[in-house]
């Protein structure tokens, strides 16, 4: 791993998409595969320039399907691997995500979301937030993060890899065109100050190949890689803890898949990250995520300062696993919960389900294809308060 081309600690003016690649390099990622798609192409082009400089390998694949499948091979081959795409390409990656879930393969997908469905357009969107959790066929969960700044494109890519390695799961970074193309000063800390998590290996625990269980043995199974003498068998069918796929039974199916689901969902308190401000004595609340959180914060501060509205601010940093318990603890009884989204109301569903008894009204604030302006959010808040 060459270090001289890693960025020295300091400030740099980067686009969000580029900051993502610097984060990946910091996290130790050295394999990138991708396919061009607006507005994510800059992620790939940054990888093409930077990965060889740090001793990594880059390849432009023939489509998004193979890009995502490549991550599976790279991960089991021992590398931290990622790909960047946008919404239509994300649809094509669901098959690989599904395989990644059942085989518990760590890798990172950056989805710089754009409006849909279909080709939609090339501006900003948050229309994949449900697809990230439910788009793969079959059961099982995964982790998804929503960055809202250039700094977070850097920080959350490192966090995404850490989560992928720690929980042996695919992790989705749900960005959008605004934060992907936004330019701002990025602060890069010294490498020694960055927390980096690597997969736990059976060699470290003194477990011999004949005793190694690639899909069992602990809540998050240890991960040996190909080429280490462990005869690792990676499979996509329902399996025993040792990877064996015969003797299928409904009981085996339940045990096999339930553990994989629980691995993520039962650990939501360790995984979920939430940011709150102005939560004291509130009568209303904005719950937001991703780039619209910036607008929401601007709107909340203005409503409080200029009109004295007792409204609080809560940002979901992790969208999945959905932190129902944490939300219920943090949120008091309120009158109205506002949810601004660059879609017609998607996260509103788990929010309403989790907090049904905590608020009298749930109000969606949609903005399609573009970032919410403070006036849009404020006018909706004032309109509802007049009722």
């Amino acid at each position, binding site marked *: 791993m060459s270090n001289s081309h890693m960025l020295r600690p300091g400030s740099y003016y980067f686009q969000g998409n580029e900051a993502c690649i610097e984060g990946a390099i910091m996290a130790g990622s050295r394999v990138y595969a991708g396919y061009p798609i607006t507005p994510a192409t800059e992620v790939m082009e940054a990888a093409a320039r930077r990965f060889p400089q740090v001793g990594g390998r880059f390849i432009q*694949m023939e489509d998004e399907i193979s890009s995502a499948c490549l991550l599976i091979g790279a991960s089991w081959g021992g590398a931290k691997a990622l790909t960047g795409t946008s919404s239509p390409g994300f649809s094509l990656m669901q098959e690989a995500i599904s395989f990644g879930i059942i085989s518990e393969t760590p890798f990172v997908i950056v989805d710089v979301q754009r409006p849909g469905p279909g080709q939609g357009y090339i501006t900003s969107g948050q229309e994949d937030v449900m697809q990230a959790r439910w788009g793969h066929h079959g059961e099982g969960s995964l982790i998804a993060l929503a960055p809202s700044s250039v700094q977070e494109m850097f920080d959350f890519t490192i966090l995404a890899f850490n989560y992928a390695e720690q929980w042996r799961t695919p992790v989705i970074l749900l960005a959008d065109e605004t934060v992907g193309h936004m330019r701002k000063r990025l602060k890069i800390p010294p490498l020694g100050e960055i927390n980096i998590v690597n997969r736990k290996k059976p060699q470290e625990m003194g477990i011999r190949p004949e005793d190694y269980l690639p899909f069992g043995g602990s809540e998050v199974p240890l991960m040996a890689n190909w080429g280490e003498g462990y005869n690792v068998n990676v499979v996509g069918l329902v399996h025993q803890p040792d990877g064996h*796929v015969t003797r299928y039974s409904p009981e085996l199916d339940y045990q096999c898949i339930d553990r994989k689901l629980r691995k993520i969902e039962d650990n939501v308190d360790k995984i979920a990250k939430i940011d709150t401000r102005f939560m004291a004595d509130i009568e209303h609340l904005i719950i937001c995520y991703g780039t619209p959180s910036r607008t929401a914060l601007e709107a909340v501060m203005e409503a409080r300062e200029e009109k004295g509205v007792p409204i609080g601010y809560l940002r979901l940093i992790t969208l999945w696993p959905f932190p129902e318990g944490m939300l219920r603890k943090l949120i008091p009884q309120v009158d109205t919960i506002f949810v601004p989204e660059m879609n017609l109301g998607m996260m509103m569903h788990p929010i309403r389900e989790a907090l049904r008894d905590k608020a009298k009204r749930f109000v969606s604030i949609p903005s399609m294809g573009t970032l919410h302006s403070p006036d849009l959010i404020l006018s909706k808040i004032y309109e509802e308060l007049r009722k």
Partner: protein
Amino acid sequence: MKHPMLKYMKETGPCGDRLPTILCPGCGAGQVLNYTLHAVDQIIKEDKIAKERFLFISGIGCSSRLTTHYLNFDSAWTLHGRAPAVATGALLANPEFKIILFTGDGDVGAIGGNHFIHVCRRNLDMTILCMNNALYGMTGGQVAPTTPRGDYTTTTPYGNVENSFVLCKLAEVAGASYVARWTTAHPQQAIRSIKHGIRKKGTSFIEILSQCPVHAKKSAVEILRSYKTKTVKAKNAEKGDNRIPIGEFLDIEQPEWFESFQKIIDSFASEERKDQNE
């Protein structure tokens, strides 16, 4: 007396016996597995290459069932058609792997067609073993891109009206370095070919005509006989010979992906050394 290749296979596991394989009686895939293991065995002994470097990757289909379940090697049983992409990923993580892809004519010729083309075009170092039974066996005998015109299958009950894909020609045109076709009735040639393909840097595509007696509705013996009588060594074929050509069609030297890409990585490393010396 134990079969000499059993040392590479999982005879038993915690859930009972893994052998015999699930393959139907008379299936050609078992023969191909045998030939492959012989080739690998010889390479391990002759070239002194560690067994840990071998990696078997498969897609979906009867031929793809032979990796994770039966082999005592690192392996992956992946997605239909996507094995070339997964293999590419493994190589990107570690170019030292010696990768053998087990695939079928449907897996590599239909859903995997695009990925197959680009692996060949990139000339990535792997050996693709395509077991061609000219139909989709696992799912009950449907038509495949390689099914001959006029053949009857479950989805061409009135006869196939499409051309049959010549996968070897596709591999050649796409950019592979080594292309060969044999049949399960040519064990020695197949073993030599597979050995050469694994040793050779770049993409090796070896198509093995492999019998599916169940769906071809013929006995294995009948089909194996036809593999002898209805094929002709390509170099011996005369114009107008309608028999299926077999043999080595292409064996060239050309830049392999990792060798080329490594030069780019090295150029930055040498820049670094220059900086340090200044």
